[in-house]
């Protein structure tokens, strides 16, 4: 089969779940050897489509041709054997096994005596890694690897099936820019080997950087498939959301006042040393840097969640003692953590419970919980933040990512926080909801609150922040003012 031929021909795939039409008559073609981006908001049907292609779900109607032949797959292993593999967003590796073991998981090489042929296993794993130009010890346990390295192992695993088509489900969501370069390099190599890539991402700039073709899905229907050169960023976004969302980064100017929070020479036992920074009232300050540079650690240490070994914290010019989260809450500091599901919310509880939790006194009457007050409080922030939910009783696990983030924000606004830390607030949230989160942050700044945003998405930091600190190896390596913002400038501090 030659380059330019159609490798995957999707024909009228329809899939319905009880009450939801997840895919309606979706048809498009993927050309061999291309990088084909698949975009759409959360719930647009990307995941469902992949699951149909790999046999996790059975389509109600339609089907697809793979390498020119009608494909009937009923489970992922069959798809893999055909040459169609997925690298999942949530990596599915066995953490305690080695790189080599993971690549050939469940399919070890055997010696004549029917024992595992460890030598061959390592050699074959080595060959795969070499073919991608990656230097990684095949005997290393996977839990010792960075997320980017784990992803490479996943890719090798997929390639060990001689895959002709590799679907990458949001591979960049947890990568830093440098790691992303490495991933793109690997994609280039794969492309040269004739492998076709279907690339799913929420990040526009990536699509324009690596994709040849892009398919847009919206509400389970196919909107368009076109060459990336035929489309620009605003047009792509409006096709995804079905409406003009206006400015992607709706920065609102606010009056910048006195210093709200100043941190001097913060250090922790493990990573941080001499971290000094400040945030003014009305200011949105970004924290950039590679994963592991100490951004999250800095915020947690200021918030009293992790122990400090040194450093001073000043709020409105006065030195304060923050030894625990309880102290931080007293000083009106808030943290919307990196992993909102694991750290920010009690998923099995209602919006009511999650909104009031930081200070239950606000929903008490005579010292005891008052369900009416609690409901009123939850409703107040649902209205204020336009959280989409049928009621305040809704369990937060049933909300979308953007709405969950709003519930996290509600619980901190309810206690009138003045200094708000947002750790990766838009991770995994779709374009439309992202803009809403940005607007909220800007509105908070306009009210005179001091806002800190950690993000691995540089364009978003540049779009929203007034100032960006860059961290490297546990300390602040630079600070860029809004007037001097550029990706290159920030990256320079992050890596050099």
């Amino acid at each position: 089969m030659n380059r330019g031929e159609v490798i995957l021909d999707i024909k009228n795939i329809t899939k319905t779940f009880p009450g939801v039409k997840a895919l309606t008559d979706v048809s498009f073609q993927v050309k061999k050897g291309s990088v084909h981006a698949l975009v759409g908001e959360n719930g647009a049907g990307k995941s469902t489509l992949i699951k149909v292609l790999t046999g996790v779900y059975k389509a109600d109607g339609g089907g697809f041709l793979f390498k020119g032949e009608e494909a009937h797959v009923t489970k992922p292993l069959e798809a893999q054997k055909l040459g169609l593999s997925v690298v999942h967003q949530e990596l599915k590796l066995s953490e305690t096994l080695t790189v080599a073991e993971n690549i050939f998981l469940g399919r070890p090489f055997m010696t004549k005596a029917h024992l595992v042929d460890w030598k061959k296993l390592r050699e074959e794993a080595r060959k795969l890694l070499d073919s991608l130009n990656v230097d990684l010890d095949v005997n290393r346990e996977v839990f010792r690897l960075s997320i980017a390295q784990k992803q490479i192992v996943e890719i090798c695993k997929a390639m060990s099936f001689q895959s002709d088509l590799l679907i990458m489900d949001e591979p960049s969501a947890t990568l830093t820019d440098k790691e992303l370069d490495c991933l793109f390099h690997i994609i280039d190599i794969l492309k040269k080997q004739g492998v076709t890539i279907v690339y799913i991402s929420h990040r526009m700039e990536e699509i324009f950087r690596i994709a040849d073709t892009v398919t847009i899905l919206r509400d389970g229907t196919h909107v368009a498939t076109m060459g990336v050169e035929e489309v620009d960023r605003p047009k792509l976004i409006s096709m995804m959301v079905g409406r003009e969302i206006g400015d992607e980064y709706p920065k609102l100017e606010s009056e910048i006042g006195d210093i709200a929070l100043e941190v001097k020479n913060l250090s922790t036992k493990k990573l941080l040393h001499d971290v000094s920074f400040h945030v003014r009232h009305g200011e949105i300050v970004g924290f950039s840097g590679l994963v592991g540079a100490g951004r999250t650690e800095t915020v947690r240490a200021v918030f009293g969640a992790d122990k400090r070994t040194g450093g001073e914290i000043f709020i409105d010019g006065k030195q304060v003692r923050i030894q625990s989260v309880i102290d931080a809450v007293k000083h009106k500091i808030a943290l919307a953590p990196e992993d909102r599901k694991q750290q920010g919310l009690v998923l099995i509880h209602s919006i009511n419970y999650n909104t009031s939790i930081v200070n239950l006194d606000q929903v008490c009457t005579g010292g005891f919980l008052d369900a009416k007050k609690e409901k009123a409080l939850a409703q107040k922030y649902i209205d204020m933040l336009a959280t989409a939910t049928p009621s305040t009783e809704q369990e937060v696990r049933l909300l979308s990512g953007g709405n969950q983030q709003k519930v996290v924000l509600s619980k901190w606004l309810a206690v009138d926080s003045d200094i708000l830390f947002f750790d990766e607030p838009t991770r995994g949230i779709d374009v439309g909801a992202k803009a809403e989160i940005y607007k909220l942050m800007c509105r908070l700044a306009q009210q005179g609150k001091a806002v800190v945003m950690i993000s691995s998405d540089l364009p978003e930091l540049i779009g929203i922040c007034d100032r960006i600190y860059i961290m490297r190896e546990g300390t602040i390596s630079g600070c860029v003012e809004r007037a001097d913002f550029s990706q290159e400038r920030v990256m320079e501090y992050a890596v050099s």
Partner: protein
Amino acid sequence: MDKPKTLKDRLTSLIFGDYMILLPALILVVIWTVVAPNFMTYSNWMNLLRQVSLIAILAAGMFFPMLTGAIDLGLGSVVGITGIVFAKLLVDYQMNTLLAAILTVLLGAAIGAAAGILITKFGVPSFIATLGVQFIGRGMCYVITNSYPVSGLPDSIAWFGRGYLSVGGTDLIPWPVVFMFIVFAVVAFITTKTKFGRFVYTVGGNEEAAYLSGINSQAIRTSVFAICDGIGALVAVILVSRLNSGQPQGGTGWEFKAVIASVMGGASLSGGKGNAIGVALGAIFVGVLENGMTLLNISSYHQQVVQGVVLILAIMFDVYKNRRLAEAK
């Protein structure tokens, strides 16, 4: 939900909601009423409730660690050792009954707090820490008593274990049953209306999120064991009166009966879910099951088999319910 409820909604909430044990309990009551002629009598019900009362109170205690996702395996032994101590205080030291009862409950709470500190400060898994308490407690029962029951208790303690609450000279309700209702009323209040109760649910629902919301999660996780074992000691006090002695094997295996009652009543083994009234209904359900089988002369060996089957069915139903919820997303 704010919307007016349809019949289907009501039915769904009856079958899958907080009081999901109610429907099977009612069905069982109807069956027993039909097949066991003596079942639906006042005296049988009082007998049933008295039999169930101690396990039910224990279940109310066990409910606290279960809300945080833990099980207190030491609870049965705590009943044993605190019962011995209570009996000894009365017999060997002729202590005032109320004072002795208070000291006993405090001892139970202290044992629970110790287990809680092992878990939170020293990082011992709760399964191991409370299993340790189970062995130490039971061993101490036999060491202290030389494996002989403590007897010779004053008659003044008879009323709260063997007596009835009487009105106008008629015995109305056994005192242990009265205590059961009081304990459940208090536990229901604590878990729904107090800040502490909400903290317990939050820590059980997601400890990391609780910690990052400014909740002292270690203190909460410690205190649930103190409450649980304090309630265990209260049961021990009633048990000593009921048996008119301190039995070294008292309470053996009761921690599991308490867990069964709680689980039947909808308490989740992973924490953060369940409610006190449901637990009470769960305990009564188990009591009804046992009582009916006894009336029908089913041997206690067969009864054990049935109880095991019912427990597994209850968990299967719970798993099914959770899956259904997850898919409803």
